[in-house]
């Protein structure tokens, strides 16, 4: 069979990608403190421990708040940049847009260290959830722009003009016509930014104040082997949540294209 080696390769590749993640739920429901085979039996009490851990609940709360704020701000900035990129003409546009996308490829550790210096030494700020939010907005905005660019570039530039020609002001034309058409892109951008911020570790590690974010707290837990199954349980929840959010984001993106009557199979997922 001609396709056999390729098929074997594909299966191995998928195993390599997803086997480690498949271990998470396996040990999250395993009735033993030690992460090792053979499995001991089914239990859900690690999830119970998780719910009973006040510090962990606090960390999850921090992370959700930071992720939500990051999603909102990064998307707002993304809308402005993508709209300018798609509709406006100004000198140096290419360079400026490229520069805005740069954080996408900057090593996070560099961003983290330099932001720590700026916030502590230069601005003299106290580290808090808001310093993390600022940093997460920085790294999430390029993703938002990339997603929203697609939404705005698929838009017929005459459409807003047509709305104005039919009696709407510039603002209401944007609200009635442009906004509904790019809304799927906005939702998709918010979900991606939310997901990125939620599990971001390096920057959060450098910039959190007294209250760690969830990834930082999990990292702290690793020093206590007895807590490992709880981490597995949390990991299981997070993976499920991330997958659900990404799928929703992609569905919205596709719906947006379908609305505008465009066929497309590419994109983020």
């Amino acid at each position: 069979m001609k396709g056999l080696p390729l098929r074997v390769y594909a299966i191995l590749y998928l195993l390599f990608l997803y086997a480690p993640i498949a271990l998470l739920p396996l040990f999250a429901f395993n009735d033993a403190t030690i992460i090792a085979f053979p499995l001991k039996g089914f239990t859900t009490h690690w999830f119970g421990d998780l719910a009973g851990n006040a510090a962990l609940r606090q960390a999850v709360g921090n992370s959700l708040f930071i992720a939500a704020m990051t999603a909102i701000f990064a998307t707002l900035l993304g809308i402005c940049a993508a709209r300018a990129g798609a509709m406006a003409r100004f000198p140096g546009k290419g360079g400026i847009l490229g520069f805005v996308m740069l954080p996408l490829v900057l090593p996070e550790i560099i961003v983290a260290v330099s932001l720590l210096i700026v916030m502590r030494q230069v601005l003299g700020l106290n580290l808090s959830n808001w310093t993390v939010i600022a940093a997460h907005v920085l790294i999430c905005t390029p993703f938002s722009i990339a997603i929203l660019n697609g939404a705005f570039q698929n838009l017929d530039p005459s459409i807003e003009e047509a709305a104005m020609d039919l009696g709407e002001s510039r603002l209401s034309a944007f609200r009635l016509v442009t906004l509904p058409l790019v809304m799927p892109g906005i939702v998709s951008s918010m979900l991606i930014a939310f997901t990125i911020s939620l599990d971001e570790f390096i920057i959060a590690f450098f910039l959190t104040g007294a209250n760690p974010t969830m990834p930082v707290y999990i990292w702290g837990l690793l020093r206590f082997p007895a807590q490992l199954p709880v981490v597995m349980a949390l990991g299981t929840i997070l993976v499920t949540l991330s997958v659900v959010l990404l799928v929703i984001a992609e569905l919205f993106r596709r719906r947006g294209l379908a609305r505008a009557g465009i066929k497309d199979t590419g994109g983020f997922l």
Partner: protein
Amino acid sequence: MTALIELKSVEKHYGDYHALRGIDLEIRAGEFFSLLGPSGCGKTTLLRTIAGLEEVSSGTIRIDGRDMKGVAANHRPTNMVFQSYAVFPHLSVAENVGFGLRRDPRSKVEKARAVEQALEMVGLGGYGKRRAHALSGGQRQRVALARALILEPKVLLLDEPLSALDRLMREQMQLELMRLQRQVGITFILVTHDQEEALVMSDRIAVMFDGQIGQLADPETLYRKPANRRVAQFIGKMNFLPGRMLDQRGAIEVAGLGRAELAPEQALPAGGEITVGLRPETLAILFDGDTAPRRETRGTVAEVVYYGDMTYYEVRVDGIDRPLTVSMKNLIGRPVLEVGATTRLAWDERALVLLTA
């Protein structure tokens, strides 16, 4: 008829680019007016300045006696059909057509009736519930038309509305647009690069080149008496022949054809070298037994282009550098000549057009 739209020395600059150069124009109420020209001649820019989508750099635009300076598109008595139609893809057909009625004080039921009437007018009765993005190009265009006409504007602006349609659909829409215009009595301003479309549909046409109006006239005048070589070249086919003035009463010498008298109403230049134009259909190939009603010359067929109903011949005549284009109807029993055939050619001095530049 009074002028509904008056443009006085309208100028438009985009940075270094001079898009409109001193446009003076009057468009009458109820007229089907076309702006015709090659791409980049400024015709769309001119339309957009009338719509209020572009500010003029200088000059004035008056619509119905009102100066439009500082009046945005949403407050002008104009509506536009965009080249891309710009139908809102997230709305239904009825929502698209009713879009401009948002601030209309009429009741919901009355508005719905107005929408249905507008749809019927463009031949889309019963399409209201359909999604806009599921429509064909021709249907989208009708939606764009209904959406603009429902607001009963003083002027309807059409930006190359037929260029995206296939040939059959285009010819059908030309007739339909003319019918609509007569029916609603609204002034239509059409932007097009298609001379045939402009000739078929318009009461008057402004031919534009390089941001200026080259000639403004009704279709027949434009075709029969183009003001200059550029207009003549852009509208229909035209043979250009060098010539020489012989006297001030209109006697000229045309290369290859000989002496001729120009029709007296044409303004004559002081003298010297001139260019005259001759439409292909005013020339005729003479077959055995035919006699020329007016003048005759001899030539050799250099090229034959067969169109079914017509045949275009390129005929080489001594004394003229470029062969003359002659169009002949393919009547019953009339043979199609072959390349290299020598032939007699009939021409008529009444068809000569004196061209400046």
